[in-house]
């Protein structure tokens, strides 16, 4: 079955969310009545795994990772070839940002082979190298994860918000008021969100939704109350809501304890990728994966420890409408 790149429900949801952040949400009754008339649709989530991703060794095989990515994208977009799949997401001439997560440094960050594989497919889909921007909050974070800063020439660009700066004016939505990175607001037409699969000592987990903390100038202000409702509100900011088109969660190496710092003793080779347009569904599913691993290792669940990621339910509520945390509404495809 072929799917359109963006459904009417997604479009309506985006418009209403933007309206909410523009101060039209004072009448909650209006929004609730509109939402009630939009029946919930299922969110597609692909979980692609490869038991032989590391070829029996410790290192990831780039070839197998490319293949894994291709299968995930083809499955998500119902396409027969990877380039056809990527063309459902981006158009030639667009500038595409890849929002990686490099806070934890080498070992705990979005892996370079994955990013390379994505860059390869984007170029084949018609996005020239110089129109691809790998970005995160700080250039030093990118470098610590093994990326090389590059801001000129006909190459893939790579730099932090410290190089590109932030908008002067505040973007305000709900509990947050932040300056948004210019990489997002001015330079990118589309963003592909590339978080990692790991727990977080304050928020519970950090994946798709929290990765966008790297797009604002003051994320340190928004960890109170386990990041709730801040994480959801940040994702309501118009430039984020409108430009983030897809999340590919790097679950090649996942972490179930000690995050966001890299704690190798609490990682495991999940050898997978999670792909979705619905960041809530992805975070919810990722959380369940972590809980299962914790149970397997005889550890208390995040819920028991009082660290359940409450922000996920907030992101799914009718006010935010960022996605679904209802398993019945998640079309889960495991390949």
């Amino acid at each position, binding site marked *: 079955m072929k799917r359109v790149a963006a459904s009417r429900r997604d479009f309506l949801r985006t418009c209403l969310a933007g309206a909410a952040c523009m101060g039209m949400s004072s009448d909650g009754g209006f929004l609730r009545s509109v939402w009630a008339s939009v029946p919930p649709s299922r969110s597609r989530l692909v979980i692609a795994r490869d038991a032989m991703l590391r070829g029996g060794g410790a290192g990831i095989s780039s070839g197998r990772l490319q293949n894994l990515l291709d299968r995930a994208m083809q499955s998500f977009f119902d396409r027969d070839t990877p380039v056809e799949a990527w063309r459902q997401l981006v158009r030639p001439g667009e500038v595409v940002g890849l929002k990686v997560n490099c806070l934890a440094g080498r070992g705990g960050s979005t892996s370079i082979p994955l990013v390379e594989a994505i860059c390869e497919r984007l170029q084949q889909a018609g996005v020239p190298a110089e129109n691809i921007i790998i970005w995160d909050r700080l250039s030093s974070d990118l470098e610590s994860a093994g990326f090389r800063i590059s801001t000129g020439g006909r190459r893939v660009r790579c730099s932090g918000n410290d190089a590109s700066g932030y908008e002067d004016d505040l973007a305000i939505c709900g509990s947050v008021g932040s300056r948004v990175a210019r990489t997002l607001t001015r330079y990118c037409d589309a963003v592909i969100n590339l978080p990692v699969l790991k727990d977080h000592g304050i928020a519970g987990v950090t994946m798709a939704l929290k990765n966008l903390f790297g797009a604002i100038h*003051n994320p340190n202000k928004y960890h109170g109350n386990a990041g709730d409702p801040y994480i959801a509100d940040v994702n309501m900011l118009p430039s984020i809501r409108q430009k983030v088109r897809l999340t590919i969660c790097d679950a090649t190496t996942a972490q179930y304890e000690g995050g966001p710092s890299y704690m190798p003793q609490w990682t495991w080779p999940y050898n997978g990728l999670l792909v979705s347009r619905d960041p809530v569904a992805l975070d919810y599913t990722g959380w369940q994966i972590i809980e299962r691993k914790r149970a397997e290792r005889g550890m208390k669940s995040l819920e028991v420890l009082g660290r359940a990621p409450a922000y996920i339910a907030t992101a799914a509520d009718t006010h935010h409408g960022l996605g679904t945390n209802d398993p019945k509404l998640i079309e889960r495809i495991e390949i």
Partner: protein
Amino acid sequence: MSSQARNAADRLPAPTHSAGEQIDRRTFLQATALPGLAACVWACLGGPILLHASPASEEGRFTVEAQFYDKQAYKKIKCKLCPRECVIDDRERGYCGVRENRGGTYYTLVHSRLATAHIDPIEKKPFFHFCPGVLAFSVATAGCNVNCKFCQNWEISQARPEQVRANYVPPRDLAALAQQNHCPAIAYTYSEPVVFYEYLMDTAESAHGLGIKSVVVTGGYIQKDPLKKMCRRVDAIKVDLKAFSQKYYKEIVNGDLKPILDALVTIRHEGRWLEIVYLVVPTLNDSDAEFQGLVRWIKSELGTDVPVHFTRFYPQYLLKNLPPTPLGTLERAKAIADAEGLHYAYIGNVPGHPGENTYCPQCRRLLIERLGFVVRKMDLHKGKCRSCQHPIAGVWQA
């Protein structure tokens, strides 16, 4: 001005304001068009201090091991500087954004990292009972440990240090700059001095060596031990008591009320000169009940001699939807404070209002007449009312 100095000046950000002062430039100029105000006017028109320090180019120079933290397992640290007590993972920062865990050791990222510097009259802080008429060399770094929705300095207070232009000005140089600019006091202000604690303490020590006083303008969100240590190093503290309700502190400030009240008591017990600013925000902290609760608490816990400035709010930052504080509200607050027996209740940010003046609490003689930040008349004799000899609380000599 030499071209080098001009270049240094151009690198500094636009003027910022002390908490308690939200006056627009036109009103201020009208209020202070008097001889001898050149330095004040120049400062408010955005004339930055001419720093001769080299520009900030190496992060390492600003990175100094922090004080007041505990090491925990797995390279985590627990900050003990403010009541938030952030538990911070390796490579992460606390709420304030200017202190960072690196491999299990905690560092301040803003030592000697001067983001702004101006010469202000000390009345602008405001200090009305501390060395009236002196100029304060007023400084700040980036960062803050709360997030007040009305912050007038949010562009530096809510920023991380790498987001704000700054110069490397180590403590000794900062003290020397104050001396060169004929400022008998250094004011640590604009953002939140608690978060640049180490820089403040080192600078205050250098300043005292030159006979320069140190005054702190703070929200008071600090733990007892570092506060006591600060009290022994500085000369006066002005605390912004944002409200007298925990609800307001939670929703508008993102902080807590009780630690601030505890800090006020500590400052009094330590014998530091203390003044309080209460920024009156319409509809949010302007009820008579709140004013009453506040002044009764001050009278009971701090005494009647602590000056309280009920200050007019102007729309800022995340509270642009509210109007400026009506004058009637400020007058009502002052009346409640006067009725309760507080000796020095003021109205702030209303230049020309008699509520800016100091009157003898005993005979009501006008002792200090002010217009904006300018002292027009001072009629004390050795810290006492010239008429009835009633001692007037304060520090009157620089």
